């Protein structure tokens, strides 16, 4: 059985959904990222408690016309990339909520 993986947004980010795309700015170095619609769904669902495979099966596969295996592979790649940029946390255990660094989150 494959181990569950959990994902959570890093606390050092500011983000906003604009026109169907997620704009993300690292508050560490002001680097700007833009996610497309599918990636935005994963970003918003990354609460640290929901396993990635559940996010993919419940939110991606039901909403988009994509094969589950392909969707899972794409999601794995995405979260690894975001983790590499320091804006997402990936773990094989649930990720406890942490205090957000944002002063004025909206």
């Amino acid at each position: 059985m494959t181990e569950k993986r959990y994902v959570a947004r890093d606390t050092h980010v500011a983000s906003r959904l604009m026109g169907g795309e997620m704009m993300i700015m690292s508050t560490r170095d002001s680097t700007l990222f833009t996610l497309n619609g599918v990636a935005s769904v994963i970003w918003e669902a990354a609460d640290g408690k929901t396993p990635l495979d559940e996010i993919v099966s419940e939110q991606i596969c039901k909403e988009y016309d994509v094969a589950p295996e392909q969707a899972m592979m794409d999601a794995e790649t995405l979260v690894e990339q975001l983790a590499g940029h320091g804006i997402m946390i990936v773990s094989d255990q649930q990720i406890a909520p942490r205090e957000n660094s944002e002063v004025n989150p909206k």
Partner: protein
Amino acid sequence: MPDTLTVTEASQVVVEIGGLPIRLRVDDAGFIDLLHKRYEGFVTTSREPQFEFQIEVTPPGLIEPDEDVRVHRNSENWFFDRGDFHAEWNPTSGQGKVRQTVNPYSIDCVLRIVHTLLLARTGGFLLHAASAMRNGRAFLFSGVSGAGKTTISRLAPPDVTLLTDEISYVVKESGEYFGFGTPFAGELARVGENLRAPIAEVFLLAQGPANKIEPLDTAEAAHALLRNTLFFAEDPGMVNSVFQSVCDFVRKVSVRRLTFVPNAEVWELIR
């Protein structure tokens, strides 16, 4: 409206940008004279400043206006550092100090940082953009260096008042956005007029073979403006505030792409 240039004390000058007066004190008559000239049109005596900087003049040294500036916070105090200056500022007490040589560039950078931090509290920001006033409304022309900010400013017809050719000052008041003139000049080396007007539109500048205006969706607009927004602070809360301010702004104000041929006809599209 700008006040007539008036000197109240030989050792101080009050510079009002965006409606925010800041007192600069320095015991150097030559430097005071330089500041009066540099900020002509933005020097005021009409309002008591909430903020004040004491400038300590240091011996001449290397000035590196293009060097990266470091802005960080330690408890209540902010610290600004670049090779040519060091500044500390406490927004609560309103007091700050700057150590720099006699030159206009260092204090100019300090003022840009202070205004960025103050604007972030109220949904405003500084943008790499020229801005101009026509028919009582402000138009902003944003772009990186070389995009045409100076060119479009230079081409402005007589009925257009230049607010800045380099750094636009965006203020949010009661949910509406206003553009203010600034003394932060670019290649035109001319300070803007000390006026304000509601922002009608922002144009992202590009030079091309024909004049045309194209729509942008909000994500494109936000992306482009965020790239041209002044982010000085390494402070996460401050970065977040400016980020959210720009996102709010593009939801409210029209942002379009303006491709233009560098001649005066482009201004026929901007009314």
